[in-house]
């Protein structure tokens, strides 16, 4: 999962990475921590890059101004990305900006250490000649050596700071099961400053699959579930659920990540509005409808949802068994009452038609036909609501 800067800094500080003093004004208006003395910098907490260019980083003279700026930044999405709050931290001046990162090189199955004397800009815009690159196995001694080699290729004034920061980031990378740790910029401070360097920004991407052996990350996901709703749901419920369009009309009960993503893409290309992404993992239900009950409850929160499309291409799951669980789940969530269209393929299809047919669910064998049925249900819904208003 992608950690917001505030949380990334808190975790990295535990590994001796110096960060500016700061706090978090959450999206719900709650302040976590205390605002340090000015001058301050206010930073929108968003996933993805380009935050500075999009206006997500502002200056403030004092706490009062910082809260004002933070409130206005958190109120609207930044370049389309929702803002999960604002970090308010002490502004640091007079530093040299360096780039330091450790990233998983998935192709080589190694870790890439990347450094540059040209920090503070989008690293992809930096000329290759100005980038220092070293590779290592993800193992403490080898990685520390790669960090040292990289740091020694920087400008003399930056070497010591980059080596020390890089060594601590490497320890964090290994200990946290990370896929990316990036500090850009790393502020290298002039002689006589209280610290030699400080991480002005921090990006941390960790591995959801390793959460079971990462107590600090698991605790964060539980405590900050509102900032990490997807990871929290997966941790607690064992399935992936993402609201992709809060105004969406079509709830999707689907299994398999790729097919679920593709279905969303295809529906949107046809001008339809899917509400959510879901990989329910039918193989993990094991005779218990609870996960389906939870999922239907979440879908019920979508105010625009007017039809439920079920798409299960079963390799393993018996569709008769699944259908009985679905009927039990639908009965258990009476508040979620929308027409249901099911597209099913796999073993037990005939039994599923019988079970779901008795419940008034349209069952199709082919996905394009099921999408037509969804269109039909939406069109009917429009007529119904028009009748209500007339």
């Amino acid at each position: 999962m992608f950690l917001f800067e505030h949380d990334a800094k808190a975790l990295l500080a535990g590994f001796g990475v110096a960060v500016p003093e700061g706090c978090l004004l959450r999206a719900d208006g709650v302040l976590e921590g205390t605002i340090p003395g000015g001058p301050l910098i206010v930073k929108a907490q968003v996933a993805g890059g380009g935050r500075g260019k999009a206006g997500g980083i502002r200056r403030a003279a004092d706490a009062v101004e910082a809260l004002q700026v933070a409130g206005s930044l958190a109120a609207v999405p930044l370049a389309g990305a929702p803002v999960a709050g604002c970090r308010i931290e002490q502004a640091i001046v007079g530093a040299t900006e360096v780039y330091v990162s450790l990233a998983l090189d998935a192709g080589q199955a190694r870790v890439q250490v990347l450094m540059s004397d040209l920090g503070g800009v989008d690293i992809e815009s930096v000329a290759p000649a100005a980038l220092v690159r070293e590779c290592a196995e993800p193992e403490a001694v080898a990685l520390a050596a790669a960090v040292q080699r990289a740091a020694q290729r920087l400008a003399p004034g930056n070497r010591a700071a980059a080596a020390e920061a890089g060594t601590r980031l490497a320890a964090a990378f290994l200990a946290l099961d990370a896929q990316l740790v990036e500090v850009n910029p790393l502020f290298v401070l002039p002689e006589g400053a209280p610290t030699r360097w400080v991480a002005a920004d921090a990006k941390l991407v960790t591995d959801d699959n390793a959460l079971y052996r990462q107590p600090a990350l698991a605790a964060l996901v539980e405590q900050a579930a509102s900032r990490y709703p997807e990871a929290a749901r997966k941790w607690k419920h064992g399935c992936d659920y993402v609201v992709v369009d809060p105004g969406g009309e079509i709830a999707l009960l689907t299994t398999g990540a790729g097919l679920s993503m593709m279905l969303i893409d295809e529906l949107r290309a046809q001008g339809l509005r899917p509400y959510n992404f879901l990989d329910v993992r039918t193989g993990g239900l094991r005779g218990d409808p609870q996960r389906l009950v939870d999922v239907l409850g979440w879908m019920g929160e979508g105010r625009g949802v007017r039809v439920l499309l079920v798409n299960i291409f079963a390799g393993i799951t018996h569709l008769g068994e699944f259908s009985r669980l679905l009927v039990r789940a639908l009965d258990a969530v009476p508040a979620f009452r929308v027409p249901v269209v099911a597209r099913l393929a796999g073993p037990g299809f005939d039994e599923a038609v019988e079970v779901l047919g008795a419940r008034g669910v349209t069952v199709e064998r082919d996905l394009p036909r099921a999408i037509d049925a969804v269109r039909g249900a939406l069109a009917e819904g429009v007529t119904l609501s028009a009748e209500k208003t007339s």
Partner: protein
Amino acid sequence: MNPRPPFSLSVDRHTPVLVQGITGRAGQRHACMMRDAGTSIVAGVSGRAGADAVDGIPVFADCASAVQATGAVASVLLVGAAQVLPAATEALAAGVRLLVTPTEGVPVHDAIELRRRVDAAGATWVGASTPGLAIPGEAKLGFLPDVSLAPGPVAMASKSGTLSYEAGFRLVQAGLGQSAWIGVGGDPVKGTRFADLAPWFARHGRTEAVLLVGEIGGDEEEAFAQAIGTSGFDKPVVALIAGRTAPQGISMGHAGALTWGSVGTWESKRAALAAAGVQVCATIDEAVKALAQALRR
């Protein structure tokens, strides 16, 4: 670091295959289903005491004795995520040459370590988080649904299980089938990547065209494009990439399906593949039609 041995797959109905974790729920079921599909399942391995056979398949306490007794050269590992690394290491030590690991949720740092051990052994690893692989009409190692499988001219490579089931199903409906189907899986670090398959597809006699079933995240589609672009690959390639409209910074079901910044985006993949002469299709039906046309059927 050892150079990676080139990918090669010589699996048929005679290849002796063992199943690790055979006494588990998934192990029992899928050992039988794979055997029904024609695969020579010759042995099972289980740490559980007392099981000497599962539906007639002999069960051994460890890989070494299973390999010694049966000559198994391939293993399907139906074990929990935390057991994949130790179980695969045991199989490699016993001399197994092909590992298929369907398990979802293997930590990335474990996968890196396994890649190192597989490379050192000069073996082949497909997975993790894969529905497996198949040579239709010969053998399947994993879960691929029979309704989506038929012998034919299209080699399929996929990150996603279900999307490839759907694509395979429609290929079969359209009268096309597969020469080989390799689910590389949805994890960021894996045993076999799309690009590893390119040289093998190029020389695989029964493969006349390729369907690449990709998704956002990582750089495998880009690397595959580079591999075919530089090698004079002369078979038509059609691609589907799921997640065009997915939000950034969120793992979309697969650990590997995570984009940040410009890394792993749909547009980056589309552009790279298109530049290498690959037809990138917006829908599954379009992809099937494109393949039918490329093969003039």
